[in-house]
């Protein structure tokens, strides 16, 4: 399947035009202040690829922060009639994801296609093409290589672009969806020749042994002290989960007025104290340390058990976005050490 070509950077303008002409919307990193966010763009000129990582992840394309699951109207005496329109999410190209984000789709799919296939997620994913750009730089929060990924990893991407010179990208066309994009403007893609991507990739050091972690973390489960210490600074905001490309928890809300309503699915976070609050007032995870433990265990232990993969792609967003500088890698290393020492 995989095919390697070269595309000039200045040809991307044309590719964007063709893509949009084909009826696809394009989401790509846009700079805002010191950060970059995935937003809809109309031309390549709006795109900013200077950041190591966008603040928000690309999961918005397949798992929006606020998504209508159902719409209904109230008729006479409050009789409910449902909006039967078929679910037709926009055909989307996400451009400029990093390989870690592309990889996160597998983790999301594992959840949304697990026991009951989630038509909303699956339909959106089916209509989404991922054009990733390899990392040529990384920062101290990046740890993709520790969790099985890498700065030039192709997993999850439909096309992976790697800048091989100031003017050119090496384009790995990885899937049919990728081919379909190429087919929009085949003339823009030249033969690759001997270009190699590896020399251009960022160096991301391995920070911990993930296999060891998988074994040691469960040992720490009952070590309340370590979880308490780690989470003492935690404010219980949901930021880590909201910026995380693999966090899939959601809340369902009905919003209705006299005329009708909509059932919405919105992001949620296990960091919130209300996340597990029962109507009775009982809260099985009643302190922040338990919630922090849940988050870590879920990503590095439960996910492995149930989905056969990690729930973390090492993008480092949680560490960057945490308002109180809770650093995931730092904590993971500590946990590994703790587990090792029993």
């Amino acid at each position: 399947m995989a095919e390697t070509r070269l595309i000039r950077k200045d040809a991307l303008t044309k590719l964007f035009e063709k893509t949009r002409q084909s009826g696809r919307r394009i989401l790509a990193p846009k700079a805002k202040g010191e950060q970059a966010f995935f937003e809809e763009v109309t031309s390549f000129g709006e795109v900013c690829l200077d950041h190591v990582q966008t603040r928000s992840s690309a999961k918005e394309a397949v798992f929006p922060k606020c998504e209508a699951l159902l719409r209904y109207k109230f008729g006479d005496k409050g009789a409910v009639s449902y909006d039967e329109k078929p679910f037709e999410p926009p055909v989307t190209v996400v451009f400029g994801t990093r390989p870690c984000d592309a990889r996160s789709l597998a983790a999301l799919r594992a959840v949304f296609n697990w026991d009951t296939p989630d038509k909303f997620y699956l339909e959106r994913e089916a209509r989404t093409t991922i054009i990733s750009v390899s990392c040529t730089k990384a920062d101290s929060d990046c740890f993709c290589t520790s969790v099985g990924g890498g700065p030039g990893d192709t997993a999850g991407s439909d096309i992976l672009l790697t800048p091989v010179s100031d003017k050119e990208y090496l384009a790995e066309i990885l899937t049919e969806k990728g081919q379909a994009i190429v087919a929009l403007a085949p003339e823009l893609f030249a033969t690759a020749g001997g270009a190699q991507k590896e020399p251009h990739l960022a160096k991301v050091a391995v920070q911990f042994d993930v296999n060891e972690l998988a074994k040691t973390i469960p040992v720490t489960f009952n070590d309340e002290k370590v979880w308490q210490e780690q989470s003492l600074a935690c404010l219980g905001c949901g930021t880590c989960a909201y910026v995380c490309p693999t966090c899939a928890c959601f809340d369902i809300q009905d919003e209705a007025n006299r005329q009708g309503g909509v059932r919405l699915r919105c992001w949620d976070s296990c960091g919130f104290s209300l996340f597990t609050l029962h109507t009775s007032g009982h809260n099985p995870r009643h302190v922040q340390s338990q919630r922090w433990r849940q988050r870590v265990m879920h990503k590095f232990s439960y996910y492995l058990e149930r989905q056969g993969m990690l729930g973390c792609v090492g993008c480092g967003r949680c560490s960057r976005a945490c308002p109180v500088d809770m650093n995931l890698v730092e904590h993971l290393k500590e946990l590994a050490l703790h587990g090792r020492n029993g």
Partner: protein
Amino acid sequence: MEELKNKVRELLKAGTVQAVIGYRAGSDEKTARVAFVRQPDEADGLILDPRCTDNLAVYLLKPEVKLLGKLAIVARPTTARTILQLASENQLADGQVIVLGVSADGKAVVELASFEALEKFVGQVPAGLTEEEKVLLAKIEGMSREERWAFWQSEFARCIKCYACRAACPMCYCSRCIVESNQPQWIPVSPHDEGNLEWHLVRAMHLAGRCLNCGFCAKACPMGIPLNLLTQRLAEEAKAAFGAVAGGSATGEYALSMFKADDKEGFIR
């Protein structure tokens, strides 16, 4: 700096407090993070420099932190004001916390064991917006109404309702936030445009007359929304209209709990 470390060691050694909330080095050279110092020798790790901007008062009400025992806290003037405001709202009792007040230049450290001492301390430091902040506010005020609407709509559109702004705010200590009140559901939970607008307006109103302008909310916002501008605007209004400034005293009056018979009312028909 040594002064601070010595004070912390003393307090812990003497058993006056069981923990000191301060700052330590963070993930990188640009970041400081909170330190919960419980052993005298841990005081060595404390830092005090321009990185140390988080309003640590937010931890004083966190149940897990309260369990550590009696607390001391390293406080710049804004944090000190926050403590007084919390006191005036019955969230902290006199003598409950020992404040290690850091002067505005970050050099001198004074131990403030009572609210009275704290009041004197903050009284020496003028409160209010910086010139920079005023310029930014004026810029938005100078826009046409339609421009302001467009500006805020584009900002609020990014909001993901993670409530980091609320979590970071030391004055957001409600045991149940209004957004979690669903009988009735005042504010839509969902992060759509209407829900976002209402959340940000309500958050700002709930902080009107109470905000200390520490800026922690804006810093915490992962989406980079300058939401402290809203509370700054209200703080300016409360000051101009009522002469009310939050955080000046432990018995301070809340601008909206009181009134003057001649409060201005040019807009009322």
